[in-house]
Structures are given as structure tokens and as C-alpha cells.
């Protein structure tokens, strides 16, 4: 138990919010961004819901007679979608948005009148006949009608296009399919009302139901009604493309023959085809304008009300997770593309043995694709939880069906990732039609056998990047790195596995919204802008490539990336790209043609590589080659391949023997001449390159000199500062010195004072000595006087008087005599002795 838990734990941490594997080095960063993603997600789901609500509201308020009629028509579709939505449990927000408009019910009451109008339109008969049933449903769920108002535009379009009607008339069948899904059946059985609804279906439908039940796979679902506004806007785009394509195809057949024509029939046809391509693709680009025109024609103009800018802004901020699958389908126009039973039909081919009806040469090809698909299925998002046995079966079916749908493309590696991604977001058949839309329109000619458009796009990108980031490209040239090495895989995989998933999905959001592959270029340019500064610091090719790969792989800030791409490169438009593609396509076509010829004398398979190479060496050469391509064919061949022959060191001499024909000899001579010119030119180029290198070195040196000067100036400044500091220190020193001197003087004065005191003391001592001497003298004089007096008294006085007189002198002698003696003994304490005796 514990073990398995741990394992789960590990797995969860190694996969992102979409279930895709995270590289170990990115786990940490992903965690840092996980919360940001979550916040962004919440914000955008709020904004989208608001937007959708607003759309519903604004459509509701607009009502013209025509529109109402259209609404009725639309109701039928709506209801079908409703049942689907209810059962799949996805309609939570559409409910939320619609419930607040009960006013819609009013329109319901108008239905009978409308029916009359409908009956006036023969092409809507099928729909009309179903109306009664629908009405029942409607009355059950009036709130759903809000979406009905989104339908008018589509409806009018339908009446303009006969094929569409066929599709519509088939819709009842689709209805049944919605209920085919196992879960749905369960739900239906739980709700009696729904069951009766089903039982009302015709016998034929019942049969279909049984048939499809057997498959037990949810293969198709309608988008939620709330997204129909967007869906219808985009559908008109798809129809326009379709029309143009049909026209184009009837004139030209498929892509490859046209290429052959271009090369073989010389200049004039090249121009023609160019023009055609131009027309086709420019109209592609101007979808908005053309759709507007058409809607003006029909006097119903919902697109003028449609807030394109607002939607664009929302798309730039990302599509919410739970809406993404359906929004993408709406962008690609799946609803318009879809042909009933087509997908099943494609898959059925498999079981009808391997009888190839369409193409003579297709027998080998499908087997080859099938084999490649089998190889690639386990290698598509390996370990993704959703790609289990059943998921892989779906993936296989979608890829096989696409290969059969478009044999000129078949299966190409990278599609497995696209289909895998789409299957994670939508049911199988929806994924198929989305894939069809992306590959047939957005990436027309990209994944074909020759991969022409992808090669052209690399040349275009090379030119753009040279224009936008000259310094970076200069550095990469110096390292010997070609941008296409890295951008090629980016473009081909539409960034899957190249960027973190959050970023991939955000790029896809915009790409699918825009309806072309401009976003590829913008994203790639944004990546170069973001990581160019880091790339410039690299010192060799390997480091530069590794760095760019790993930086791109850690572009977790998806908002920054998308905004940089969309805001920073507004000048990169489809029109601009078309122009550049026209410019570069001839070069690629020539090489492809040579290659398909199986390599005669001037064969050269380097193609893209050599073009990119010559790009690097002389951007002008391509223009030159293009000019030549309109002239003599043989000259063109020799010319374009010759540069490579020379550069790759292949010798033309070895092939001289194989030139029997004099005309070929002439050609050879021309070639030789060209070669020599080429040699000269490349020598000049080389010289230029060296000169550039020298100039760069000089620049560098100058830079360094400037640096050094700067350093010198800095040093000088520092020196000045140091000097100042020194001065200050000196001043301080002086002050302290003065202070010291002052202190010394003080000390001297004090010492002097001490001396003076000492002297005074000595003087005092001296005077004291004198005084003592005087005292001694005085004492001796006093003694003498006393002796004299006592002698005198002896002689004169009586015995009584004698005794008294004797006593008194003794006392005095004692007084003086002791004092004297003591003083002699200890001169220091004369007073003490005196006091002691006294």
C-alpha cells in the first residue's frame, strides 16, 4: 500500500496539470508556476463566461424578421445539441448564462407563424418535418433558446450553399449518435422524458442507433450552444477557404503536379502559379474582409456586431481548460467541415480488405503509413494516463482516417502528437475533423512527402530573424549555428515537446484562433527575443544550441511568451509571410524537383541547407537566383546547385566523361563559367567575411580600449578621492600633533610647578633647620640662664625655699632636656616628642 502510494506520489509530481511528463529539471519551476497557472485559469474562465453571456445577451436584443426565421431553423440544431450537452454534463456554464434570460420564451410563442415561413423554403423541409417534436422539447427547456439567436448567420449561409443543406438534412442521424455513448444511454434511461424523446425518432434512426451502439465509443459531440457565436464566425472563414480551394483544385490539381509544371515549362508558368498561390493564400488571409463582404451581401451582418477584438484579447490571455476543446473546434470550424458518415467511411475502408480504389500507387503507401503509425503510437506522449489501450486505439483510428482522407499527405511524424493532444481535449471524431482543419488549411503543404512549405517557412523565418535580430544572428553565424536547426523542429511540432505544456496550449489557442500559422513565426521570434541576450554570451555552437533548447523548454511564463509574440510582432502578418514565401518558394521547389529526378549531373539534395547557407553568406544571392529561375532552365539548375558543388568540395571534373552531347558540353561550359564566377564570388565573400571578422575584432578592441579608458578614468577618480582622504588624514595628524605638543607643554608646566614646589619645600625645610638651630641655641642659652639663676638662688634662699626651687628646675630640665635628646634621635618627629613629653 505504502509503496504504491509513493509511486503515485512520484508520478503526480513528474506530470503537469495536463498529465504530460515533466522533465526532472523542470519539476521545481513547474511547481513555482503551478499557482500562477491556477490563478490565470480562474481569471480567464470568469472572463470567458462573462463574454459568452454578453454575446448571448446582445444577440438576444437584436431581432429582425429574417433573423427570427433563422432562429426557428436553428432551434432544431439547438435542441439536438442540448440533449448532447445535458447528457455529457458539460453545459453547466451555458445553463448559467442562459437561465438569466427567461424573456426568450416569448419567441417560442411565435413559432407557429414562423413555421409557415419555413414551409416557404423547400430546402428546409427536413427540418420542418421535425419541428413538432422539437417544440415539445422546447417547451421543456425554454431557457436554452438564448443560443438560438446565434444561429441566424449560419442558416443564411446554408441557404446559399447547396452542399451544406445536404449536411443539414442528415442531421437527424447525428442526433441519434449523441445518444450512442454508453454513459448517455444510462442517463437517458434514468430520465423517462428523454427516453420517450428517443422513441419518437424514426425507424431509420433507430437502426442507426443500434448500429452505432455497437461501437460503444463516444465518437462525436457537438460544441456547447454557448460557443455557437464563435463557431459561426469561424465557420464562415472555413467556407471561404473551401470555396477558394475547390476553385484552385479544379484549375491546378494538387500541389506537386503544379510544382513540376513550374519547373519544366519555364518562366511563364512559374509566374502563373505564383499568382494563383498568391490569390489563394491572400484570400485566406483576408478572411475577415471577405466574410464581411458576404455578410453584407446577405444583408444580415452579425459579424459587424461581433467583438473580434474582445475575443482576440481573450484568446491571447488563453482559453479556459474546460472550454478549450470546444473553442478550438469552433476556431477550426469543425462543424462546417464535418461531413456526416465520412469518418466512419474512412475507417470502414480498412475492413473492406485492402482494395485501393482511389489511387493506383496508393497500395504501398497506406501500408507504409500504417506501419509508421504503429511504430509511433506507443511513442506518443508515452505514459500519459489518458493514452491507455483505448486512447491508443482512438489515436490509431484518427491517424489512419486522416491518412486516407488526404493521401497527398498521408501520415507524417508530428501528426501523432497533434492527434494525441486533440484526443485529450475532445471526442474522437471531433479530433479527426480538427486535425483535418489544421493540416489541410493551416498547414497546407507542410507535412507532405516533400515538406515544401515547411522548408519555405524556414527560409522565411531565417530572413525575418536576420531582419529583427541582426546582432544575434551575427553571433550565431560566427559560432556556425543555423537558426533553422532549432526553429525547424519548433515549427514542425508546433512547439509540442519544445515548450512547457501551458505555453504550447497558449500558442495553439492563438494559432487556431487566427486561422493561419503566423503565430508560429511570432512565437519563435518572441523566444529569440527572450533568449537572444543569453545566446550572445555563448562561446561555441554546442553551448548555444543546448542553451536555446533548454531555455525554450523552461518557458513556463506562458503569458509573457504569448504577449511578447502577439504584441511585439504585429508587423509579422500573413500578408508579409505570403510575400516572403513567394520569394523563397522557387528555390525550394527547384531543389525538390532535382531531388525527385533522382540525381543526375547537377543533383543536389542539400536544398534547404544550402539555401540557408547561401543566406548566411550572401543574402542577395537568393534574389539573384530567383531572377535566374525565370530564364534558361539549364542555367538555373547549374547555377543553383553549383554553389553547393563548390562549397562541398565536389569536383565537376569527375563528371566530364559522362557528357557525350555537345549541347550538354555547352551547358557544362556554362556551368564551369558559373562555377568560376561562383568561386570568385565566394572568394570575395570569404574576403568580406574575413574583413567583417577583422572589423569585429577591431570593434572589439576599440571597445576594450574604451573599457580600459573608462577603467583608467575610474582609477584616476579613485586616486583623487584617495588624495583627499590622505589630506584629511594629514590634517588630522597635524591637529593631533598640535594637541600632543600642547599636552607636552602642559606636562612641562606641571613638571616646572612640581619643581617650584619642591624648591619651596626645600626652602621650607632649610628654614625649618635654621629655626631648629635657633631653637637649640635658644635652649642652650636658656639652660645657661637657668644654671645661672639656680646658682644665684642656692646662695641666697632658705632651706624651704631651696627644696621648692630644686623641684621646679628639674621639671624644666626634663622638659627641655628630653625634647632635645629626642630631637637628636629622631628629627622627623620633633613635635610628637614635644607633645609626648608635654
Amino acid at each position: 500500500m505504502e509503496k504504491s502510494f509513493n509511486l503515485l506520489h512520484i508520478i503526480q509530481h513528474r506530470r503537469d496539470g495536463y498529465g504530460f511528463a515533466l522533465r526532472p529539471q523542470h519539476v521545481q519551476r513547474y511547481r513555482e508556476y503551478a499557482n500562477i497557472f491556477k490563478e490565470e485559469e480562474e481569471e480567464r474562465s470568469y472572463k470567458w463566461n462573462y463574454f459568452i453571456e454578453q454575446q448571448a445577451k446582445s444577440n438576444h436584443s437584436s431581432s429582425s424578421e429574417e433573423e427570427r426565421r433563422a432562429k426557428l431553423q436553428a432551434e432544431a440544431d439547438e435542441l439536438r445539441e442540448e440533449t448532447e450537452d445535458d447528457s455529457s454534463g458539460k453545459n453547466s456554464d451555458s445553463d448559467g448564462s442562459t437561465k438569466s434570460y427567461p424573456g426568450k420564451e416569448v419567441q417560442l410563442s411565435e413559432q407557429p407563424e414562423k413555421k409557415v415561413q419555413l414551409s416557404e423554403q423547400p430546402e428546409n423541409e427536413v427540418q420542418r418535418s421535425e419541428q413538432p417534436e422539437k417544440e415539445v422539447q422546447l417547451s421543456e427547456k425554454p431557457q436554452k433558446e438564448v443560443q438560438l439567436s446565434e444561429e441566424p448567420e449560419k442558416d443564411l449561409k446554408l441557404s446559399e450553399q447547396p452542399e451544406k443543406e445536404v449536411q443539414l438534412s442528415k442531421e437527424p442521424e447525428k442526433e441519434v449518435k449523441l445518444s450512442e455513448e454508453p454513459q448517455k444511454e444510462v442517463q437517458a434511461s434514468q430520465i423517462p422524458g428523454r427516453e420517450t424523446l428517443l422513441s419518437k425518432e424514426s425507424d431509420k434512426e433507430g437502426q442507426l442507433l443500434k448500429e452505432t451502439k455497437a461501437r460503444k465509443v463516444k465518437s462525436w459531440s457537438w460544441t456547447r450552444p454557448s460557443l455557437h457565436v464563435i463557431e459561426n464566425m469561424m465557420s464562415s472563414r472555413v467556407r471561404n477557404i473551401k470555396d477558394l480551394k475547390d476553385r484552385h483544385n479544379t484549375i491546378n490539381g494538387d500541389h506537386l503536379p503544379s510544382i513540376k509544371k513550374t519547373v519544366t515549362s519555364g518562366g511563364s508558368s512559374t509566374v502563373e502559379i505564383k499568382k494563383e498561390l498568391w490569390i489563394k493564400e491572400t484570400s485566406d488571409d483576408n478572411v475577415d474582409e471577405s466574410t464581411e463582404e458576404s455578410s453584407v451581401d446577405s444583408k444580415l451582418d452579425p459579424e459587424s456586431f461581433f467583438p473580434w477584438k474582445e475575443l482576440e484579447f481573450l484568446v491571447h490571455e488563453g482559453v479556459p481548460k474546460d472550454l478549450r476543446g470546444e473553442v478550438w473546434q469552433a476556431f477550426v470550424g469543425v462543424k462546417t467541415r464535418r461531413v456526416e458518415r465520412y469518418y466512419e467511411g474512412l475507417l470502414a475502408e480498412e475492413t473492406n480488405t485492402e482494395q485501393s480504389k482511389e489511387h493506383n500507387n496508393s497500395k504501398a503507401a497506406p501500408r507504409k503509413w500504417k506501419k509508421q503509425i504503429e511504430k509511433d503510437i506507443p511513442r506518443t506522449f508515452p505514459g500519459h494516463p489518458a493514452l491507455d489501450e483505448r486512447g491508443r486505439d482512438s489515436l490509431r483510428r484518427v491517424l489512419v482516417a486522416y491518412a486516407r482522407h488526404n493521401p497527398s499527405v498521408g501520415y507524417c511524424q508530428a501528426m501523432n502528437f497533434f492527434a494525441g493532444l486533440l484526443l485529450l481535449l475532445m471526442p474522437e471524431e471531433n479530433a479527426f475533423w480538427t486535425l483535418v482543419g489544421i493540416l489541410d488549411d493551416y498547414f497546407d503543404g507542410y507535412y507532405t512527402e516533400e515538406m515544401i512549405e515547411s522548408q519555405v517557412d524556414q527560409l522565411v523565418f531565417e530572413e525575418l530573424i536576420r531582419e529583427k535580430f541582426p546582432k544575434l544572428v551575427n553571433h550565431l553565424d560566427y559560432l556556425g549555428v543555423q537558426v533553422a536547426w532549432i526553429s525547424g523542429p519548433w515549427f514542425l511540432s508546433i512547439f509540442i515537446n519544445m515548450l512547457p505544456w501551458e505555453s504550447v496550449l497558449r500558442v495553439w489557442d492563438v494559432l487556431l484562433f487566427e486561422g493561419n500559422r503566423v503565430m508560429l513565426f511570432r512565437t519563435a521570434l518572441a523566444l529569440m527575443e527572450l533568449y537572444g541576450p543569453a545566446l550572445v554570451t555563448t562561446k561555441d555552437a554546442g553551448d548555444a544550441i543546448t542553451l536555446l533548447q533548454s531555455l525554450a523548454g523552461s518557458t513556463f511564463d506562458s503569458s509573457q511568451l504569448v504577449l511578447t509574440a502577439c504584441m511585439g510582432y504585429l508587423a509579422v502578418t500573413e500578408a508579409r509571410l505570403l510575400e516572403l514565401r513567394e520569394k523563397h518558394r522557387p528555390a525550394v521547389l527547384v531543389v525538390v524537383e532535382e531531388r525527385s529526378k533522382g540525381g543526375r549531373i547537377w543533383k543536389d539534395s542539400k536544398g534547404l541547407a544550402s539555401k540557408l547557407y547561401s543566406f548566411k553568406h550572401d543574402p542577395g544571392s537568393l534574389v539573384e537566383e530567383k531572377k535566374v529561375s525565370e530564364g534558361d532552365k539549364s542555367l538555373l539548375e547549374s547555377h543553383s546547385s553549383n554553389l553547393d558543388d563548390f562549397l562541398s568540395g565536389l569536383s565537376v571534373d569527375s563528371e566530364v566523361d559522362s557528357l557525350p552531347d555537345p549541347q550538354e558540353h555547352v551547358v557544362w561550359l556554362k556551368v564551369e563559367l558559373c562555377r568560376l564566377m561562383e568561386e570568385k564570388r565566394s572568394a570575395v565573400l570569404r574576403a568580406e567575411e574575413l574583413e567583417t571578422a577583422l572589423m569585429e575584432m577591431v570593434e572589439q578592441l576599440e571597445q576594450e580600449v574604451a573599457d580600459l579608458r573608462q577603467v583608467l578614468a575610474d582609477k584616476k577618480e579613485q586616486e583623487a578621492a584617495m588624495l583627499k582622504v590622505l589630506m584629511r588624514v594629514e590634517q588630522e595628524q597635524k591637529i593631533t600633533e598640535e594637541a600632543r605638543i600642547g599636552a607636552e607643554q602642559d606636562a612641562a608646566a606641571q613638571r616646572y610647578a612640581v619643581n617650584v614646589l619642591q624648591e619651596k619645600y626645600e626652602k621650607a625645610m632649610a628654614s625649618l633647620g635654621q629655626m631648629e638651630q635657633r631653637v637649640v641655641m635658644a635652649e642652650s642659652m636658656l639652660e645657661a640662664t637657668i644654671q645661672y639663676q639656680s646658682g644665684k638662688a642656692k646662695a641666697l634662699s632658705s632651706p624651704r625655699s631651696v627644696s621648692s626651687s630644686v623641684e621646679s628646675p628639674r621639671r624644666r630640665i626634663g622638659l627641655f632636656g628630653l625634647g632635645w635628646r629626642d630631637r637628636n634621635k629622631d628629627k622627623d618627629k620633633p613635635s610628637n616628642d614635644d607633645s609626648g613629653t608635654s
Partner: protein
Amino acid sequence: MGCSSSLPDRSTGRLGGLNVSESGGVVDAKNLRVKLVLLGDSGVGKSCIVLRFVRGQFDPTSKVTIGASFLSQTIALQDSTTVKFEIWDTAGQERYAALAPLYYRGAAIAVIVYDITSPETFTKAQYWVKELQKHGSPDIVMALVANKADLHEKREVPTQDGIDYAEKNGMFFIETSAKTADNINQLFEEIGKRLPRPSST
């Protein structure tokens, strides 16, 4: 002061860079830098060989390579030279051959891989040899690699066929297994030994 000393280094590096872009890359006699390209049919194990060599890992369910992917790895040879391999691992599907020249142009080494359990991939390998002989650099070093040698019980291409073909075309031949890592490092070491040294030329 630091600036002045680093200046001559940089300028030599620049000149070296110019050489590299032409001939596939040499830095100096002791430190080689070479561009290597892996070619071969889809699913023969090109990416697995690179991953085994560079990261020492093997993932039986590695993902499909779209266009090409890049990895680099440096090894030291016995004569104390180092070789930095700049490896371009290309997509295997046939139509991606249109883009292959972009990657093999200027490569000093081409490693052409086939799967010993699939004769078809051996045929495809021969196609690549011819393609390179026609359009690759004339002095390109080519190696023929028979991968998935661990699946010997399912072998359908005899070792001798590979050896013979390689010998006839002046190639180096080796049988490897990315799964067991058998001979993977040897493959790159042998290639390293066979590289033209700048000192000798």
C-alpha cells in the same frame, strides 16, 4: 588589467570559430570539437543511443523525434585528448530526409544506424550511406551501427552483412545495444580515435 590578458585569447577563439563553421569543428590538438549526425530509419534507436551515451539512461518508450534534437557530450580518450561531440539526432521517417541535409552538412561524423531485427532498416542505412557519399562532406567519417543487439534471437540481419557492407564503403562497423549499454561508449571512443587530428594535417 584582466581585460588585456584575455584579449588575445578571444581573438584566437574567433579565428577558430571561423574554421569550425566550415569543417565541422576542431578547437586544438588536445581538445577536439566535432559535429556528429545520427541517421537511420525510424525506430532503430537513434535517440536511445544518444540518450544512453549522454545521460546513461534507457527509456523503452522514448518519444518520437520531430525534425531533430540536439545533445552534446565530452569524452576523454586514452591519449588524453578530449572530444566534445555535438550530436544531432534526426527524425527517422522517410520524408524528413528532405530536412536531413540541414543537419548533416558540415558534420564531421555520420553515424548510420539500423536495427538487426529489421532488414528494411539495413536497406535504409545503405540509402543513407549513398546519400552521404554523394552529398556529405568528402572527408566525413562514417560509422555503421547495428543496434538492438540484445534482441539476437530475433536477428534478421547477419553481423557479417553489416561488416561486409561497412568494409566495402570504408566505414567503421559496430554492433550495439542501447538497452544494455553494450558497445555504446566504445562506439564513440572508436569514432574519437578515427578523427583527423589537426596536428597531423
